[in-house]
């Protein structure tokens, strides 16, 4: 063991160089880093959101809403199909999450079933029947139309993918630093935005469904009656934010929807100078809008965003150009945001914030400073303690091991861009402090062996090899608990686990190889007769 094998020396020197090379970028400021030549590592430690400031948002897609929307659409499809085929029916509605309808003429039951089979639902791979709905007969001349369970899963999955796409489009237009958007599990989306971005604005842009509809105001209905619960059939009562009325009674039927928009831009109204959002329809939308506006001159229509009326203008004349503007109660920024939302499209289902963690950049910087100070103080204290215990030579060797270890950890974390979090800094400090354990185990073993009457070289040799088994055992326990942390932990805790795991490997490496080489070197050059610690 106490021989200086060339490959071991090479390995240690290489590891130390590697550590230095990858650690150095952390000492430069971003400008210097970016001016480094391409072959030099230029990545600094990847600081977690808790250290650099930023927002972590966990959204879940409201699958319940998705489900009820699917059922509503199915109801309308069934109604239309049966009406078109002139099959008389009654009692159409949702019972226990499935659709139930009574066919009045028992003879038409099979016809109705066949008609529905062809008309409703959509193809779905991997299920019996190949469609996402099943149609079965029930007692009392009833038909039951139900979605297969996989249909909802497929829906949710598609909704998550679409949502991510739409969120990405929205955020791109916001022009902030590129946030990280990933899917998590079945129905969740994680957004991580680093730096000084405004979390409230981010949330306003991401979280809004932005479902836009144009619905006619029911001029005949009384607002008081509707507010008291007497909403005329086919109408609905929607709250308003237009600044004129608290609510409007509008027709349920959406004449034109946001999907028919091709463009939306924030503008200023030429007469009033107030911020507005101008929009343009596609061909289908333009035709529909022209028809409706020409038929309803003098009446009001409501522009409804996420079931809230944002504007209810009176139709002055037929609007045939396919474009118009929304004169809501906007500020410059809300007009801008609404235009972004309309351009990017509506989310397929509402998103719900399940978890939000926002840390201001100043707080992050404070945390980094506190971590650095406590790290330096803690490690210096440990180093001084080691020198006090074992003297300059052996204490010094363990300090050199500690330095190599620290360089390797920081270098490795910089290279792999593993996230360093605040608890991770704590993990790092503790790992380094306790890394001297390996040295202590080796030294104590050598003293034991010497006391047992061995010669110096034999004691060093067997002290080393015998301590190895213990060092391995001891470090594997660390690795096990770090692995558990990694599997179960979330966010910052994962960073902690990762730091601990890297630390286990570098500790074993530096304790075993660095200590060994330095001791061997000392032995060779000084030819000592006794250990200074014995």
């Amino acid at each position, binding site marked *: 063991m106490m021989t200086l094998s060339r490959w071991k020396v090479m390995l240690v020197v290489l590891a130390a160089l590697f550590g230095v090379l990858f650690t150095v970028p952390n000492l430069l400021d971003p400008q210097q880093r970016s001016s480094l030549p391409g072959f030099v590592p230029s990545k600094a430690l990847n600081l977690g959101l808790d250290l650099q400031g930023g927002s972590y948002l966990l959204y879940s897609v409201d699958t319940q809403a998705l489900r009820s929307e699917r059922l509503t659409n199915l109801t309308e499809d069934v109604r239309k199909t049966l009406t078109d085929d002139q099959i008389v029916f009654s009692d159409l509605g949702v019972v226990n999450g499935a659709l139930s309808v009574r066919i009045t003429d028992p003879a038409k039951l099979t016809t109705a079933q066949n008609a529905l089979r062809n008309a409703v639902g959509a193809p779905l791979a991997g299920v019996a029947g190949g469609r996402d709905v099943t149609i079965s007969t029930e007692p009392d001349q009833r038909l039951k139309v139900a979605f297969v369970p996989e249909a909802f899963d497929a829906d949710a999955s598609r909704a998550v993918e679409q949502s991510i796409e739409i969120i990405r489009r929205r955020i791109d237009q916001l022009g902030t630093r590129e946030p990280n958007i990933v899917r998590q599990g079945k129905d969740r989306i994680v957004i991580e935005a680093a730096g000084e971005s405004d979390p409230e604005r981010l949330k306003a842009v991401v979280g809004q469904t932005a479902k836009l509809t144009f619905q006619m105001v029911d001029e005949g209905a009384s607002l008081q009656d509707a507010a008291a619960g007497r909403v005329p059939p086919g109408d609905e009562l929607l709250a308003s934010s237009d600044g004129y009325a608290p609510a409007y009674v509008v027709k349920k039927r959406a004449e034109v929807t946001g999907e028919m928009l091709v463009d939306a831009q924030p503008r200023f109204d030429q007469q009033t100078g107030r911020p507005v959002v101008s929009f343009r329809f596609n061909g289908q939308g333009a035709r529909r809008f022209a028809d409706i506006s020409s038929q309803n001159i003098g009446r009001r229509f409501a522009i409804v965003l996420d079931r809230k009326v944002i504007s209810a203008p009176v139709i002055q004349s037929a609007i045939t150009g396919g474009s118009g503007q929304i004169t809501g109660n906007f500020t410059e920024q809300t007009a801008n945001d609404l235009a972004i939302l309309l351009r990017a499209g509506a989310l397929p289902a509402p998103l719900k914030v399940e978890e939000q963690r926002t840390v201001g950049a100043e707080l992050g910087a404070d945390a980094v400073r506190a971590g650095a100070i406590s790290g330096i103080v803690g490690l210096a204290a440990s180093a001084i303690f080691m020198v006090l215990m074992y003297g300059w030579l052996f204490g010094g060797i363990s300090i050199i091991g500690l330095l190599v270890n620290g360089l390797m950890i920081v270098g490795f974390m910089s290279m792999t861009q593993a996230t360093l979090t605040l608890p991770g800094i704590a993990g790092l400090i503790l790992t380094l402090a306790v890394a001297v354990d390996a040295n202590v185990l080796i030294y104590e073993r050598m003293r034991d062996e010497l006391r047992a009457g061995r010669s110096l070289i034999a004691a060093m040799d067997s002290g080393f090899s015998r301590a190895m088994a213990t060092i391995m055992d001891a470090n594997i326990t660390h690795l*096990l608990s770090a692995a558990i942390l990694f599997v*179960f932990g979330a966010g910052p805790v994962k960073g902690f686990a990762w730091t601990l795991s890297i630390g286990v490997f570098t500790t074993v490496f530096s304790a075993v190889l660095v200590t060994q080489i330095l001791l061997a070197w000392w032995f060779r050059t000084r030819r000592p007769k006794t250990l200074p610690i014995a």
Partner: protein
Amino acid sequence: MKFWPLIKVLPVKTNFRFVRLAKFFAPLSMLLVLAALAATLYPPKPPCFGLTCGIDFKGGTVLEIATDPKPADLGQLRHALEGMNLGDVQVQGFGSPSSAMVRFQTPEGASAEKTAEAVKARISQTVSPVRFVRTDVVGPKVSDELLTKGVLALGGAIFLMLIYIWFRFELQFGLGAVAALFHDVLLTFGLIAVTGIEFNLNAVAALLTIIGYSMNDTVVVFDRFRENLRKYKRMPLGDIIDLSINEMLTRTIITSMTGILALLALTVFGGPTLFGLSVIMLFGIVIGTYSSIYIAAPVILLWGVRRGEEETAPAKPAKAGP
């Protein structure tokens, strides 16, 4: 006589009768564990029982606000939030005089996010200037999941350690080690309960780290113990345990000291966020060192251990070491 390096001054060979003292310490530990258990479980209110639950596990919102240059007026803040029907609202100073922390739970049926926004709006109206330097909102679904994960992680870690020690040593050793782990974890829970340190994800991370370090200590003592079992086949078990612990005492003290020094620095300079984590780990290292000596080893003594009986049967072949 030279006084440095200190290692020369320390007694070369100690002869403490640890096992005999275990008769005294074991019941004491047992009592403490029971007390800790009581403090942890009482009052029996889920999800965190006697622990001060962080929002990670019970859901809710934590806001950290800065009002500099003015000092934070906690009374004014409290007053502003009264009548918002938030239930249990905690307002406390945090770090500097111009910082405050506001913590509340989401009212039944309300949206955690909307509640947090309403509270922020209310604070902005009453206190000026104000900046929200940290906003943590945890919804009920996520907090349930985090709690489940945390409990599973702790259980899983202890179980894995049992398996590892069993595999690496013998079952008796594994049981001793797990007894020590339970001891450490429960006492630390007791500490968390008594001191009111927030029980959150960081606390679980700290507990898992303690499990790692307590095991580390235990394994080192066990290693020597196994070696001495083979070396001194006729020596009574209790004497072997004493011998092994004494032989490793210097190492145990030095390693604990370096860990303690680093954690002390973290506790003092690490800022309010790391304070809880550091204190828990500090306590854990001390307790872990103690339990390796007074819990893990004596449990083996209690259980007995298979030895190369009467020199006729060969000793269990060594799996590791020379």
